[in-house]
C-alpha cells in the first residue's frame, strides 16, 4: 500500500499536471479491422471540441486535447464510422479499427455499429464474440464455439452433444467451416463432443445462413467464418484455464512496433485419470486431443501487412489392441496491400489437411487403415470503395483437392486400396454495394464456379441398376470432367425508420463435394468425395425476407426472417450403402430434390445487467429421391418443427455473474419398425417407410456461475472461477433408440440410450 504522503504527492502532481501541462497527446493508427491495412486520410472527429484530424500515409493520426472525456468518431469512405470513448488523463495511444461496409467482419462487439441489426444489407447472419461464447454454460466446462452456434435461430444440432450442425434444414456437410479462411473438414474432437476451436485464441465468429458472401462458395447451407485474434496486443499477455477435460494457455505479444505474435494450445487429459483406474485394461489406454494455434503478423509499412497462421489439432485413442487417431491441420499465409485509398487487396495461400488412421496391433492381425483429404488454395481479393454507388469487391480463388478415400495395409497380404482422386475448384466473383438513398441500399453480384475432376483416377460407369458397366483410367494431371456454376446473389435493405428495416435476399449456391455419411451424428471416419461424371453438383436456391426492428436506442434487437430453400441433386445413399473403403461408392449415391422452409424469430438484449437472447424457429425440411422411401417425400434427418433457445446472462454483482441456457426442440425424425419377423427365436424389424416417426422432444437446462474474486484488483494476474451444470434437471434425452428382446418373454421392446445425466464442472480461468 502506498503511504498517504505519496498519495498526496501524486494528487498534487496530477493537479499540477492538469494545471500546467494543459494538453494531452493522443495518437494511434487507423486500420482496416479485417485486413489490418493502415488507412491513410481517414478522419477522426472529436465530438466535444468539433475539431477533426486526418491520418497520414501510414494511417497515423494525432491530436492534443485538454484533460477530460471525449468521443472520437473515426470515419473513412467505404467503412463504417467508429465511435470511441476515451478518458484523456495522460498521453496515450488509441488504435482505431474500422470495418469495411462490404466486408462486414465483426470482431469486437463493442466496435459494432449499434444499429447494424437494422442497417446491414446481409441477412441471415449471426455473430457471436469470444466473450459471448465464453459466458454460455458449457458441457464439462469446455467452452465451445459450435455448441454456441447451435443456440442460434435456424441452427440445429445434428445429435445430442455433437459438433455437427444443420443450418436451415441442410445437412452438416453443407456448412463451409473456415478458420482464418482455411477450410476445416472435421470440426470435432472426441467423436464430436467438443469442437476443434479453442475459444481463447478466437476473436469471434460469423455464421451466414445461406446468403454467403460472394467471396465464398462451395457449400449450400452456410458459412461459419471463425477468426483468430486480430487485435495487436500492446504488451506480452496471456489467458488460460484449467478445466476438468482440458487445460488451455494462450500467449501473445508484440515484437517491436510492427510485429505481433500469438500462440495458443489445449490438451485434454482424460487419459491421465485412466492411469488411476483399477481396471488394468484402461490403465494403458491413451485418450486425448490437443490443438495448437499460432499466428504471426507483420506490418511493413502503412500499406503492407503479412500474416501467417497455423492450426494443428489431433485426437488419439489408443490401447493395446490398436489405436485410432485423426487430425486437422490448416495453415495460411496472407499479404494485404493497399494500392490506394480506393483499392485494397489481399493475396493468400491456404493449406488444409484432414486425415485419420486406425491400426490393429494384435499379433497375427496387424493392419492399418488410412484416409485423408488435402487442399491447397490460392486466392486474391480486392475491395474498391469508389462512391456510394460503386463499392466493388472482386477476386479469384483456386483450390486443388486431393482425396484419398482409404487404404488398408496388412503385412504379407494385398490389402485394399480405394484409388485416390484429384479435383480443381475455381471461383471468380464480382460484387457491388450501392447506397441508392438514405433508406435503400442494394448489394448484388455474381460468382462463377468451375469444378474439374483431374487424374490420376479410375472412374467407373454405372448402369440403371447402379452396377458397374465400364471403367476408365485417366492419366495424372488429365482433366476428365468439368462442371460450371453461375451463382448470382442479391439483396436489399430498406430502412423504414432509424430503428427498423425490411431486408430481402436471393442466393444460388453450388456444392461440388460431400461427405459420405449415413449415420445420425457422423463419425471421424466419414470421407469427403467430389462431384464427378456420375455425381452432379448439388445446387440450392435460397429466398429470404426479414423485418428487423431495434428498440430502446438499439439496446434490444428483434428480427423475423422467413426463408425458402429449393435443393437440386441433393445427395442421399442407397439402403444398406457401404460407404467406407468402397471403391464403388458412387454406385451407392442416390440423388433427388429437397426443400426447406421456415420462420425465425429473435429478440436480443445487448445492454444492462441482463443480456442474452430468446429465439424460436418453425421449420420443415424434406427430401424426394426416387430410389429412397419408394420415391415418396420423406423428412430430412435434421427436420425439427419447433425449436426454442433461451440464453440469459445476469450480472449479479461485480464478482458474480450467472448464465443459463434452455433449449427445446422437436425430436429428430427417425424410422421405427412397424413389423417384425422371427427366425430361430430372434426378431428382425420390418419398416414401412423412412423417418415416419420422431424421437421424443429434446429439452435441457444448463446453468453456470462465474465468480471473480478480485474484480478491482490492479494486479496483472486476474483469475475467475466458473461453475457449471449441464442438463441441470437431469432430462433423459434419448441419443439412440434401440430394440432388444425381453429376457423372459423373448419378445422385442424399445430402449433408449441417453448420454448425459446432470454434469457438474468447474474451471479456473486466468489472464495476465
Amino acid at each position, binding site marked *: 500500500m502506498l503511504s498517504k504522503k505519496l498519495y498526496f504527492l501524486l494528487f498534487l502532481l496530477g493537479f499540477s499536471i492538469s494545471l500546467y501541462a494543459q494538453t494531452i497527446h493522443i495518437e494511434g493508427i487507423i486500420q482496416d479491422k479485417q485486413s489490418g491495412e493502415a488507412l491513410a486520410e481517414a478522419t477522426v472527429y472529436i465530438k466535444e471540441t468539433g475539431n477533426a484530424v486526418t491520418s497520414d500515409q501510414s494511417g497515423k493520426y494525432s491530436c492534443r486535447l485538454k484533460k477530460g472525456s471525449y468521443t472520437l468518431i473515426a470515419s473513412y469512405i467505404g467503412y463504417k464510422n467508429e465511435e470511441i470513448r476515451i478518458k484523456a488523463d495522460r498521453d496515450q495511444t488509441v488504435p482505431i479499427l474500422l470495418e469495411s461496409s462490404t466486408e462486414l467482419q465483426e470482431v469486437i462487439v463493442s466496435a459494432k455499429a449499434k444499429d447494424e441489426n437494422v442497417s446491414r444489407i446481409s441477412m441471415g447472419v449471426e455473430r457471436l464474440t469470444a466473450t459471448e461464447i465464453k459466458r454460455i454454460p458449457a458441457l464439462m466446462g469446455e467452452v465451445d464455439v459450435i455448441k454456441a452456434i447451435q443456440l442460434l435461430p435456424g441452427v440445429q444440432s445434428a445429435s445430442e452433444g455433437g459438433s455437427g450442425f444443420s443450418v436451415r434444414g441442410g445437412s452438416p456437410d453443407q456448412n463451409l467451416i473456415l478458420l482464418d479462411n482455411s477450410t476445416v473438414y472435421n470440426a470435432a474432437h472426441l467423436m464430436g463432443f467438443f469442437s476443434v476451436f479453442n475459444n481463447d485464441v478466437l476473436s469471434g465468429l460469423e455464421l451466414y445462413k445461406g446468403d454467403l458472401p460472394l467471396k465464398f462458395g462451395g457449400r449450400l447451407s452456410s458459412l461459419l467464418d471463425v477468426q483468430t485474434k486480430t487485435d495487436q496486443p500492446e504488451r506480452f499477455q496471456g489467458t488460460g484455464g484449467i478445466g476438468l477435460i482440458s487445460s488451455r494457455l494462450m500467449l501473445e505479444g508484440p515484437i517491436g512496433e510492427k510485429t505481433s505474435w500469438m500462440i495458443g494450445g489445449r490438451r485434454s487429459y482424460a487419459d491421465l485419470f485412466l492411469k488411476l483406474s483399477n481396471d488394468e485394461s484402461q490403465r494403458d489406454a491413451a485418450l486425448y486431443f490437443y490443438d495448437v494455434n499460432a499466428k504471426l503478423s507483420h506490418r511493413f509499412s502503412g500499406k503492407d501487412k503479412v500474416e501467417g497462421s497455423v492450426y494443428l489439432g489431433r485426437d488419439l485413442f489408443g490401447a493395446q489392441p490398436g489405436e485410432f487417431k485423426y487430425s486437422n491441420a490448416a495453415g495460411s499465409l496472407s499479404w494485404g496491400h493497399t494500392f490506394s485509398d480506393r483499392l485494397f487487396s489481399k493475396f493468400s495461400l491456404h493449406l488444409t489437411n484432414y486425415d485419420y488412421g486406425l491400426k490393429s496391433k494384435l499379433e*497375427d492381425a496387424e493392419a492399418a487403415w488410412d484416409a485423408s483429404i488435402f487442399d491447397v488454395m490460392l486466392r486474391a481479393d480486392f475491395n474498391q470503395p469508389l462512391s456510394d454507388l460503386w463499392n466493388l469487391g472482386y477476386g479469384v480463388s483456386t483450390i486443388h483437392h486431393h482425396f484419398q478415400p482409404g487404404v488398408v495395409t496388412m503385412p504379407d497380404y494385398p490389402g485394399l486400396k480405394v484409388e485416390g482422386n484429384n479435383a480443381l475448384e475455381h471461383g471468380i466473383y464480382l460484387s457491388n454495394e450501392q447506397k441508392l438513398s438514405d433508406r435503400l441500399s442494394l448489394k448484388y453480384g455474381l460468382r462463377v464456379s468451375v469444378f474439374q475432376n483431374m487424374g490420376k483416377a479410375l472412374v467407373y460407369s454405372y448402369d440403371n441398376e447402379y452396377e458397374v458397366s465400364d471403367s476408365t483410367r485417366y492419366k495424372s494431371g488429365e482433366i476428365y470432367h468439368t462442371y460450371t456454376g453461375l451463382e448470382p446473389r442479391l439483396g436489399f435493405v430498406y430502412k423504414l425508420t432509424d430503428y427498423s428495416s425490411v431486408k430481402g435476399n436471393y442466393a444460388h449456391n453450388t456444392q461440388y463435394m460431400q461427405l459420405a455419411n*449415413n449415420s445420425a451424428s457422423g463419425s471421424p471416419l466419414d470421407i469427403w468425395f467430389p462431384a464427378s461424371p456420375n455425381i452432379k453438383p448439388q445446387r440450392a436456391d435460397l429466398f429470404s425476407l426479414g423485418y428487423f426492428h431495434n428498440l430502446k436506442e438499439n439496446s434490444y434487437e428483434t428480427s423475423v426472417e422467413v426463408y425458402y430453400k429449393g435443393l437440386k441433386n441433393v445427395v442421399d445413399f442407397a439402403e444398406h450403402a457401404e460407404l467406407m473403403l468402397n471403391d464403388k461408392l458412387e454406385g451407392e449415391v442416390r440423388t433427388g430434390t429437397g426443400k426447406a422452409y421456415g420462420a425465425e424469430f429473435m429478440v436480443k438484449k445487448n445492454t444492462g445487467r441482463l443480456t442474452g437472447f430468446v429465439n424460436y424457429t418453425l421449420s420443415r425440411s424434406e427430401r424426394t429421391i426416387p430410389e429412397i422411401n419408394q420415391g415418396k417425400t420423406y423428412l430430412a434427418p435434421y427436420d425439427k418443427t419447433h425449436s426454442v433457445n433461451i440464453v440469459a446472462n445476469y450480472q449479479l454483482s461485480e464478482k458474480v455473474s450467472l448464465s443459463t441456457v434452455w433449449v427445446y426442440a422437436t425430436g429428430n425424425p427417425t424410422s421405427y419398425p412397424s413389423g417384425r419377423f422371427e427366425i430361430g427365436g430372434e426378431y428382425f*424389424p420390418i419398416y414401412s417407410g423412412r423417418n415416419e416417426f420422431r424421437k421424443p422432444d429434446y429439452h435441457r437446462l444448463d446453468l453456470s456461475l462465474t465468480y471473480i474474486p478480485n474484480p478491482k484488483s490492479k494486479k496483472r494476474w486476474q483469475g475467475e472461477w466458473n461453475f457449471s451444470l449441464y442438463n441441470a434437471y437431469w432430462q433423459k434425452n434419448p441419443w439412440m433408440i434401440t430394440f432388444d428382446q425381453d429376457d423372459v418373454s423373448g419378445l422385442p421392446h424399445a430402449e433408449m440410450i441417453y448420454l448425459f445425466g446432470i454434469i457438474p464442472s468447474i474451471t479456473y480461468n486466468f489472464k495476465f
Partner: protein
Amino acid sequence: MKRKIFQPVFYTLIYILLTGCTADIDIKTNDSEPVIVIYGLLTNEYKKQSVRLTRSSPYFSQEKNEAVSGAVVRITSSLNEEFNLMESQSEKGTYETTDSLSAKAGITYRLNIQVDFDGDGIVDTYEAETVMQPAISLDSIRIKPLRIMGESYYALNLYATDSPDEDYYICNYFVNDTLKTDRISRYRMLGDEIVNGEYINGLTIEYFLDRKEAKKHENEDNFDDLIFVSPGDHITIEMNKVEKSYYLFIIDCQMEMKGENPFFGGPASNIRTNISKGGTGFFSAYTINRIEASVPADETN
C-alpha cells in the same frame, strides 16, 4: 473382413468412450400388414432338408409370430430333381423333405411355395432361387493364447488358400460339440477383400476369451454371446462359403435388429431378401466345411 479386423479397436474405443445409460421407453409405431416369412437352408449334410414358413407381426405384438400352415412347398433343381416338402406334424410351419438327402455343390435349387397367405381365396405363389456353394479347402487352424488389455484370450489362426474370386463366409463355432453360434446374431461373418487370392498364413479370424475371465463379464449385456474356452477344449470350426446375397442378408439382420446406430451404419432399412412377391426371409444352399483343433495350455501368464 475389411472392417472386422478393426473391430477390437472399435469396441475398445466405444467401451472407453461411451458409458451411456439405458432406460425403457414406450414408442408408438404403425402396425404393418403381415407378410410371409420364408427361411430355408439346404446343405450337403444328409438329412431331411427343411423350410420354415411364418407370418410377420406388428413389431410390439405380445404374441409369438404365427406359423403358416397348409402350404404346398416344392424344391426343384437344375438336375431336374423335384422334392415335395410336407408340413411337420410336430412343428407347424416347418416343411420337410420326405426322405433324407444332401444338396450338391454347383446345383441351382428353386423353391416354390403356394399358399393363400392373405385369405382372399386366391393362392399366392412365392419363389426363390439359390446356387449351392462349393466346399473350400482349409489347411489347418491353430489356437494360440494371448493377452489383450490384461485379459487372457485365445486367437484362432487360419491357414488356407483363398480363391481369386470374391468370397463370403459364415463361420460357426462348436466348443466340445456344443454349437455356440446358434442364432443369426451370433454368426461370425468373413469376407476376403483384404486377403483376396493369397495364401492365408495364420491370420487371426476370431478371439475366444479364457473361461477363467468369465466372472468379470457376467454382468455384460452380451455375456451370452461371448465364447469362452479352456485348455484342452475341443473346438470345431465351420467355415462355410455362402452366396453374397445370403451373406448380406445375415449382415442386414445383424445390423438392423437393434435399430439405428448414431455413429456407424445408415438409416434403418428393410433387410434384403431373395423371396419374391413381397415375402421376406431367405432361401440359400451351401456346403459345410469343418475343421477341428484343441485349445492348448496358456503359457503367456
